[in-house]
């Protein structure tokens, strides 16, 4: 019997130092905070993370960065209101940053999952972010060649999953999850609900089982918003 449901620690046991890790989420929505905490406990370091943002406060992504486990971030928008952890390390030159336009980031990950090693895109052509990239005209417009991103591990958050690894998401928390799930050797999804096999409508499954290796049940995930409020309250007292 296939059963991909397991504890976070078991799912992440074999993550190696120096691994490349895709981490889902757009800000708080879809951020696999509990999986990131399990990765901190697991101890891997020298990581390259691929994420849209760089975390807020001192939980999840921000905490992983704060603990010095991250060598490099491949990211579209590492700046945010409560992003002081990354901000500080970056200004000290203690973390490397590869800045990628958000749609190019999503497409590079999608390409990694789809066996497309490189593609041409008009995004960023003629800008500083095109420097060093092969350029070619299509339909009279300049385009640049972008490379696929594949990773050792993807950590994502979904609303529900089953023991085969089928996933559905919730509202805009879907964001990078489905593309990231396709582009890693080990995709681990934390889910708020575990459903019996067959209970998720096969027409509505967003990530089919083939893309997921481990499912971790986190029924009541941490709220980043509440954490930020607590931090602010702590500073006031």
């Amino acid at each position, binding site marked *: 019997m296939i059963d991909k449901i397991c504890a976070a620690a078991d799912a992440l046991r074999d993550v190696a130092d120096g691994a490349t890790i895709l981490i889902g989420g757009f800000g708080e*929505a879809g951020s696999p905070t509990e999986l990131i905490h399990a990765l901190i406990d697991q101890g891997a370091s020298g990581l390259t993370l691929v994420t849209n943002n760089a975390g807020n406060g001192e939980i999840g992504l921000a905490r992983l960065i704060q603990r010095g486990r991250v060598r490099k971030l491949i990211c*579209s*928008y590492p*700046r945010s209101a409560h992003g002081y952890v990354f901000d500080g390390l970056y200004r000290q030159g203690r973390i490397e940053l590869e800045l990628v336009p958000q749609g190019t980031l*999503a497409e590079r990950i999608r390409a990694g999952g789809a066996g497309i090693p490189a593609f041409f895109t008009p995004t960023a052509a003629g*800008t500083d972010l095109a420097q060093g990239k092969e350029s070619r005209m299509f339909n009279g417009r300049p385009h640049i060649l972008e490379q696929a991103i594949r990773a050792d591990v993807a950590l994502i958050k979904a609303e529900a999953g089953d023991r085969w690894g089928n996933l559905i998401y919730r509202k*805009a928390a879907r964001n990078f999850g489905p593309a990231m799930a396709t582009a890693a050797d080990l995709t681990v999804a934390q889910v708020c609900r575990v459903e019996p096999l067959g209970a998720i409508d096969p027409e509505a499954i967003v990530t089919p089982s083939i893309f997921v290796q481990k499912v971790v049940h986190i029924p009541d995930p941490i709220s980043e918003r509440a954490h930020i409020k607590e931090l602010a309250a702590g500073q006031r007292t």
Partner: protein
Amino acid sequence: MSGWTLDEMAARAAADIPEGSFVNLGIGQPERVANHIPPGFEIILHSENGILGMGPSPDPEQEDMDLINAGKKPVTLIPGGAFFHHADSFAMIRGGHVDVCILGAFEVACTGDIANWSSGKDGVPAVGGAMDLAAGAKSLRVITSHVTRSGSPKLLSQLTLPATGRGVIDRIYTDLGVLDPKGDHFRLVEMAPGVTVDDIRRQTGAPIEGSA
């Protein structure tokens, strides 16, 4: 010289959007355009993070941090709306399916170039979806104050800041009027009440043609 208020600028930009358009509004001043779409007039708002049919902000007790816009603020979904993933969302943008995108800007050149992602002195660089929107929207428009806080022109002959996209802007709405980049000059389409062509010339770093 008086010029338009922020809401008047937004209303002017909204008036150029046909019913049935799929529209992406940048973070900040562009978001205000949504408040000026007439009730019952169907415009479908796109958000980069995987939403079509974005509705207004919810009441505080209805806020859902899984339903946020590109600026990470809580929003709502209207009937007919849909959720999709990030690669599909940017396929909509890059593939030319978004009819109108309205962005804020640090600078716009009469060549249609726009700079809105890097002030050239930011500590942490961040680009987000700005370059994708600049490359992909069918019609790209800017809403911005005509000059910077210190009074320098934002509409220029050429950019001084790092570009977000080149030759992509169709129209600019400012507090002083409406202008279209035309290569080596801006064409003046409309002036706010009380504003003269001379006011605009004086505050623009590129040639102006037309008297609106």
